[in-house]
Structure formats: structure tokens, C-alpha cells
């Protein structure tokens, strides 16, 4: 949350902050998702949504199958030209504030489907907040995207961002055990 100010009233303590910060804080921890899942990335999305990776930690686990009740549109997979009007309509039906995550290479830029069938990135149709590269991305990358989105919400930053690549986990600095030479 933004700037916190503690007021000590002699036995009773109050904490103040700005209303907008409080609102953004509430928003970033209750991201109802609308999964628009069209292709193989969906398997990785399911893995992320399953208990092992536990996106409930981020308050983002509740899927809403009505766009009117959801905050984040997950575009997961290849979007064909024929699906363009549908995805745009769904985005239009979502109430503000709303965010979009392009999950995987196809949703981000069309991937290798460079032909008449496929929209080269869903950002050609709707604005995207976070891009997740990968074919498909690992669940860790998806969680990174979710945390990036939370940071952007708190900072009220609507510039698009790409999830940066990470070190191979078993070779990350400071980690010991199998895989470290």
C-alpha cells in the first residue's frame, strides 16, 4: 500500500492512508479472472490454477464466467481472426477497472501462425497490460505476470509490460542441492 501514517491516540491506534491507495490495494488482491482459453496454453493455465501453484495466494483464483463480474481477462492461446469479434465484445462487456493478460506467445504476437487465420497478437484488438512470453510459459512465469500486474495496479500504471526471463530455478544464486555444481 502507499504511504501509511500511524496515529497513536493513547491506547487506541489508527492508521491512515490515501483513499486511492486503499482502493488499489483492495483491487490488486481480489482479481476475479475471466479465462478466455483457446489453445494448448490452457493446460499450463490449469496447472497454474491448480493447488500446487495456488494462485489463491494472490487473491486471483476465482473465475467468473460472466465478463461483467470479472476484473482480469486472461487471453490464453491462439486467437483466430474469426474469434476477434468475440474477444473484443467480451472485453467491452467487462466493467472498469479491467486488465488484460496475454498468456503465451500466440496471444502476445501470433507466434508462428503468421498467416490468414490468426490475429498477430491480441493487442491488435484489445489493449494488453501484461505479456507472458513462452510456448507455453511455465507457471512460474504466470505467477510473475500476476505479481507484475499487482504492482502495476498499486502504482496505477497502465503501460504494457513483458514478463522478463528468469534464471533456471535450480541454478539461481543462493540455492543449494541437486542441480548446483
Amino acid at each position, binding site marked *: 500500500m502507499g504511504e501509511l501514517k500511524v496515529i497513536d491516540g493513547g491506547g487506541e491506534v489508527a492508521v491512515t492512508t490515501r483513499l486511492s491507495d486503499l482502493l488499489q490495494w483492495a483491487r490488486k488482491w481480489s482479481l476475479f479472472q475471466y479465462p478466455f482459453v483457446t489453445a494448448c496454453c490452457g493446460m499450463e493455465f490449469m496447472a497454474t490454477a491448480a493447488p500446487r501453484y495456488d494462485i489463491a495466494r494472490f487473491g486471483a483464483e476465482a473465475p467468473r464466467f460472466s465478463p461483467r463480474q470479472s476484473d482480469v481477462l486472461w487471453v490464453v492461446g491462439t486467437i483466430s*481472426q*474469426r474469434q*476477434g*469479434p468475440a474477444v*473484443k465484445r467480451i472485453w467491452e462487456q467487462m466493467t472498469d477497472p479491467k486488465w488484460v493478460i496475454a498468456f503465451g506467445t500466440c496471444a502476445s*504476437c501470433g507466434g508462428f501462425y*503468421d*498467416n*490468414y*487465420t*490468426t*490475429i*498477430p*497478437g491480441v*493487442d*491488435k*484488438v*484489445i*489493449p494488453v497490460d501484461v*505479456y507472458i*512470453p*513462452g510456448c507455453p510459459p*511455465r507457471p512460474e*512465469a504466470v505467477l510473475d505476470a500476476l505479481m507484475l500486474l499487482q504492482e502495476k495496479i498499486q502504482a496505477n500504471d497502465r503501460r*504494457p509490460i*513483458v514478463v*522478463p*526471463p*528468469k*534464471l*533456471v*530455478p*535450480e*541454478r539461481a544464486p543462493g540455492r543449494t542441492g541437486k*542441480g*548446483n*555444481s
Partner: protein
Amino acid sequence: MSQAVVDRLNTRFGGRILRWGEAFGDHEVRVALKDWGEVAQFMKDDAELQMDHFIDLTAIDYPERESARFDLTITMRSSGNSARIRVRTHVKDGEEPDTLSHVWAGANWAEREVWDMFGIKFKGHPDMRRILLYEEFVGHPLRKDYPIDKAQPLVPYREVGEIDKLPPFGIEEGQPFARIDWESRLAGGDNQVSPSIGVQQGQRRTLSDSEAAEQIQARIEVRMAREAEAAQASEETTEEGSGD
């Protein structure tokens, strides 16, 4: 068994079977376009042939062929006698073959796909609409003269400003599965996968990327030295040979 089908067709239709033979593991006959529907109906109904399994119907575009632009093929099988055969015909651009959708119901959608992708209309088809693409689409994309980069968006594209897309993962980063060890492969090594996969598969001990890079460098140097030695040796032998 499939040869028996060809023989049966030859006895029944005689000279109207234009060619027959074997290609890509299947027997194949070619008929004229006007016999297309009749031959198919006969193969389905004949007590001996019983071609009851419609497998596929598709077309091939030969834009440079002057006599007829398209090949139309149908692959079918008999569940009774396990024969499998392909029938082929030539179709000029604009010609309309008879529909087979009343012979095999499965041909209905296949013919719609051929219309969608190649622009061949079928005479008597109950529902000759596009099946995969949208009605607004102009042209037929599997024709070889369809421009390879021509998209026809239903929703106009937004103007997207430049965003900093990141370069692809380098050797020191990224995801540990299914990555080919290109450096090793280019250097003539036999390690097909990235170091971390190699460890999982027990191919070799763990190396850090910088260690791996050093080893690859060393291997390249050894090989270059060996090649230089071999070149020198061959020079010496040629000198000796000229001396004799």
C-alpha cells in the same frame, strides 16, 4: 484386396477408368469429372465393394497445369473387406463436380471445406457455405495464388505503439526443459539438450553455463589444433611424393 477393387471397377466401367495404379501406399484410380458421382455411388452400393467408410475428400491446386487446375481426391475404405482406395479426378477452375453428400453423409462438411479453401463448388450440395472461414472472407486461401501474408481481419487492428519486446532467452537464462544445447551441437558435441535436462536424464554431471561454455571452447580449440595438424601432415606427404 484393394487390387480387387481396381479390377472390379475396370470390369464395370471399362474405358471410363482413365488410369489406375499405386501411389503412397494406396491403390488409386482416376475417373473423368462427369463420372465422379456415378463411380462413387457404385462403390458405395455394390455388394462386392461395399465402400461404406468415407475417410477424406480434399483437393490439390496445380496452378501451372493448363488442362485442369485442381485434383479432387476421395479416400475411402470398406469395413467389410478392408479394402482402401483413392479416387481422383481433374477439375477445371469453375467446374462443379457432383456432390457426394447423399452417398456418404461425411462428405458434406469435407466438400464445404474444399469450397472454403479451394473454391470448388459442388453441384447439388444441400448447404454450400464456408465452413471454417467467415462469410466476409474474399478468396480461397489454399489456392497457391493466395498471397501468403494477406490477412482479412474482422476487427480493425488497433494502432499499437512500440513496446519493448525482449530478446529470446539466452544461454544463461530461461526455462530448463526441452531446450536444445545449440552451442554444444554447433561445436560438434553430441549433447542434444540443455545442461539441466542432461542432468535430469543422467547424461552428464551438472555444469554451470560458464563452465559449459569453457568446455565447448576447449573442445573447439582441440579440434582446430587437430585439423591444423592433419593439414600440415598432408602437406608433408605431398612434398615427399613430389620429391620422389
